[in-house]
């Protein structure tokens, strides 16, 4: 990641983009657009897993919140452990990307939004049985009504952006 010096009065693109998000990434390399298809392959794998392990199922999410099944806890727990080990290895071994760029990480600072927003998302998660990732996979399985959920989520994000300055953070 490059930390560019920018005049105080005009936030850089990266500064605006870094607001309220976990996942910022910058690459200095520019590739033809079709290089991005490798991310589609990763997405396809993710989508198949979301459906085949029934993570997209409203029932599975309800079972989780009712302690009626270990399934979702097992999935998230395993994913976090594997993810932690992977990130630790990438950091320790200074693993680079396939293009030889260093892999970078950003620290996240605390904001009260993580509590307020987190609770609101939790409400929505239990209602719809969908996180943002599974929404797309649900649409793919033919749940066309989920397009409405998706558009509502888009509206929710937009309204958040509109009122962002007025909300406690």
């Amino acid at each position: 990641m490059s930390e560019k010096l920018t005049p105080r009065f005009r936030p850089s693109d990266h500064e605006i983009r870094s607001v309220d998000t976990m996942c910022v990434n910058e690459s200095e390399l520019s590739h033809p657009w079709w290089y991005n298809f490798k991310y589609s392959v990763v997405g396809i794998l993710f989508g198949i897993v979301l459906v085949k392990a029934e993570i997209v199922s409203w029932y599975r999410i309800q079972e989780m919140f009712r302690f009626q099944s270990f399934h979702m806890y097992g999935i998230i727990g395993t994913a976090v452990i594997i993810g932690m080990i992977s990130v630790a290895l990438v950091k320790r071994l200074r693993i680079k990307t396939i293009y030889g760029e260093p892999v970078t990480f950003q620290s996240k600072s605390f904001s009260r939004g993580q509590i307020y927003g987190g609770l609101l998302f939790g409400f929505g998660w239990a209602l719809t049985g969908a996180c943002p990732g599974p929404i797309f996979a649900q649409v793919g399985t033919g749940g066309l009504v989920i397009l409405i959920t998706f558009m509502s989520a888009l509206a929710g994000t937009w309204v958040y952006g509109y009122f962002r300055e007025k909300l406690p953070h």
Partner: protein
Amino acid sequence: MELLSKPWPWWVAGTIIGLLVPTLLILGNKHFGVSSNLRHICAACFPANISFFRYDWKKEIWNFFFIGGILAGGIIAASFLHAGDPVQVHPELVNDLAAYGVGQPQGLLPTDLFSFDSILTLRGFIMIVIGGFLVGFGTRYAGGCTSGHSIMGLSNLQWPSLIATIAFMAGGFAMTHLMLPFILSL
């Protein structure tokens, strides 16, 4: 083929999802996360001069390829991997839902709750439209979702992500046990 067509166990799914984290990092220093896509779509389609949406979304184009893949993965799983079969649901949940007129599972989602007809009912409207709105509003307010915070953030040992994850779960428990019984009875 038998293995592919049955529902996958938690440890298979957890392992694959966990490995997506280093895969994206090594492919191009990308951090696993999905909810930002909703913001990028807003930035691309209707920024409306809101500063939160005024950034160069074209830099984030890999995200659109990624979610396009998730969509395609859903189609592939449903078309070729027998994913439309009814979910084996805990009998207590089936009983609880039956009390609210929600029938036996037919697929991944309860069709009595999630259908174009049910949107016109108050119950369906709250669950589909308000629920979706809360997902979009809440994830951005929290700065990430289950992928960005709970998986990527926790993998990177970020304590704010732990707080967010606890809030996600607390919100889900509160909705399921305090509010959902009322909403389902509407």
